[in-house]
């Protein structure tokens, strides 16, 4: 019997049909190290979970898998956990969950500013200790909770099955920020114990190349020169931008992105403290709206120096920030896409800016995959505007 070749001496041998080539376990050819290499190419945590049931050999190897991708099925806010209500209610303390922002519909910019920058509300926070979260299923606690008849499990619980994870990617089912279809909003944030840097790219509308075919036939030479500056545009922000709500909208975009990023960072604490072998952690979403990244040094920093939580909500405190903003009313990308009202914001903690004056171009441009990387590069060549923001 081929099973006698296995090092696992506790393997039970069940009566099997006479040995023929067709009944040979294919994986008998491979040592554990190669089987593990195959498992490291699977990624999806559910597939890995199913593998645990296949055989004892699989079951013993899966915990050693280094590369895991968790696709979260749904995100449940605090309020959903304590009440049976499906869609969240806007009136319940706007700070505690960004999920509410999405479920509550698109919030008007002015209201949003009031909510983000206004005085601390006195409404009581939910008494439940669950964080709004991630569920491969459910709430952030380890307990499995019944909600509307469906059982949910948290990523923290699911990941307990692995002890050697080096590369972890978690994918939320959607971006947290509810925006109109036409609007472009993308962010990328790197965190250690606190925000290290964040880049946001936005546009009030995106016109895909095929839609341009019939229009725009005489100004292509003006816009298509690759550096985003047309004849009558000196790279500066037009005056109207300040009065027609353009600046306000972009501040809202920026703050929303930072809130989403800091909320994600906060949720990751239990996973980070438990998995000390992590080299890289990425928390993204299916829409590719936001990407939070942490590398090995940053992960270690968080373990050593715990994050500061924002007082009113379940998210990490955002430090005082220095921001650089670039704007183009009309930006044509190399692939033909046109962005209207394109805005790039590069954000760093104020106390960091003095030190490494790195070439802004590189870390900003590499934040996004194409075609948006090009957009960022083009925008960064225009006139720079600086903004400061308090911690929140």
């Amino acid at each position, binding site marked *: 019997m081929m099973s006698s070749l296995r090092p696992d001496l506790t393997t039970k041998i069940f009566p099997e049909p006479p040995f023929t080539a067709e009944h040979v376990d294919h994986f008998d050819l491979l040592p554990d190290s190669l089987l593990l290499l195959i498992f490291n190419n699977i990624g999806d945590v559910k597939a890995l979970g199913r593998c645990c049931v296949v055989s004892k050999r699989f079951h013993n190897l899966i915990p050693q898998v280094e590369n895991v991708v968790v696709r979260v099925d749904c995100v449940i806010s605090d309020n959903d956990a304590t009440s049976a209500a499906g869609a969240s209610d806007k009136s319940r303390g706007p700070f505690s969950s960004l999920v509410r922002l999405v479920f509550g519909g698109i919030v008007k910019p002015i209201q949003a500013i009031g909510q983000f920058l206004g005085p601390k509300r006195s409404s009581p926070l939910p008494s439940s200790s669950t964080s709004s979260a991630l569920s491969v299923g459910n709430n952030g606690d380890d307990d499995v909770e019944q909600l509307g008849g469906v059982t949910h*499990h948290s990523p923290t619980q699911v990941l307990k099955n692995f002890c050697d994870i080096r590369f972890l990617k978690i994918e939320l089912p959607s971006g947290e920020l509810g925006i109109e279809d036409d609007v472009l909003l993308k962010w990328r944030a790197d965190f250690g114990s606190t925000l290290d840097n964040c880049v946001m790219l936005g546009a009030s509308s995106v016109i895909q190349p095929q839609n341009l075919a019939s229009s725009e036939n005489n100004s292509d030479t003006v816009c298509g020169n690759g550096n985003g500056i047309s004849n009558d545009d000196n790279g500066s922000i037009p005056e109207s931008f300040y009065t027609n709500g353009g600046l306000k909208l972009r501040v809202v975009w920026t703050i929303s992105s930072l809130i989403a990023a800091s909320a994600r960072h906060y949720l990751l604490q239990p996973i980070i403290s438990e998995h000390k072998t992590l080299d890289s952690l990425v928390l993204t979403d299916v829409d590719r709206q936001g990407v939070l990244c942490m590398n090995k040094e940053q992960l270690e920093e968080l373990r050593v120096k715990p994050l500061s939580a924002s007082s009113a909500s379940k998210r990490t405190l955002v430090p005082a920030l220095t921001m650089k903003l670039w704007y183009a009313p009309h930006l044509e990308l190399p692939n033909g896409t046109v962005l209207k009202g394109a805005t790039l914001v590069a954000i760093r903690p104020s106390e960091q800016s003095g030190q490494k004056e790195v070439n802004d171009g590189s870390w900003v441009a590499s934040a996004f995959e194409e075609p948006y990387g090009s957009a960022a590069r083009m925008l960064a060549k225009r006139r720079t505007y600086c903004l400061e923001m308090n911690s929140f």
Partner: protein
Amino acid sequence: MSQTVVLEQNAVETQSITLKFDGCSSDANPSPIVNPENQSITIKFDDQASNHHTIPVSIPNVDSETEAAVNEFLRKHGSSDEESVRTDAMNDLWSFIERQEIGTVVVLVKFASDVKNFELLEIFCQRVADVIAKKTVEEVREIFNIANDFTPEEEQAIRDEHRWAFED
């Protein structure tokens, strides 16, 4: 360090040809150098590391079509530094592998590991991983002929522990 091999050319005249193997040459193509004095022919081969991508390999336990496909990949992939050529070679090999029986691919994983070709190893491992990821537990056991060595109670306990993996 050189190895000397002596060949008997024919039975009547024992004319021997000495082949010297020199492991340190940089020539891409082995070209024989004849030394008339001692009638030795020296054929220099590239050392293992730089050349093993382009020498056709023989792969045990796979059919000739598979062996040919792998060799075609090695030839094409090793022949150029251009990204597009290498990507084409990978795509061709990938399409071929997707049509093969999974048992063959497992054999190829072992082969790639044995010859330390990490590009091949990555492709073959990824293929096996893709097959496993899509299937149910029973299907995986069947496709790979894996014996279920859990008792029914043990299996149920593990399924309960990993309930999240079975819910959609």
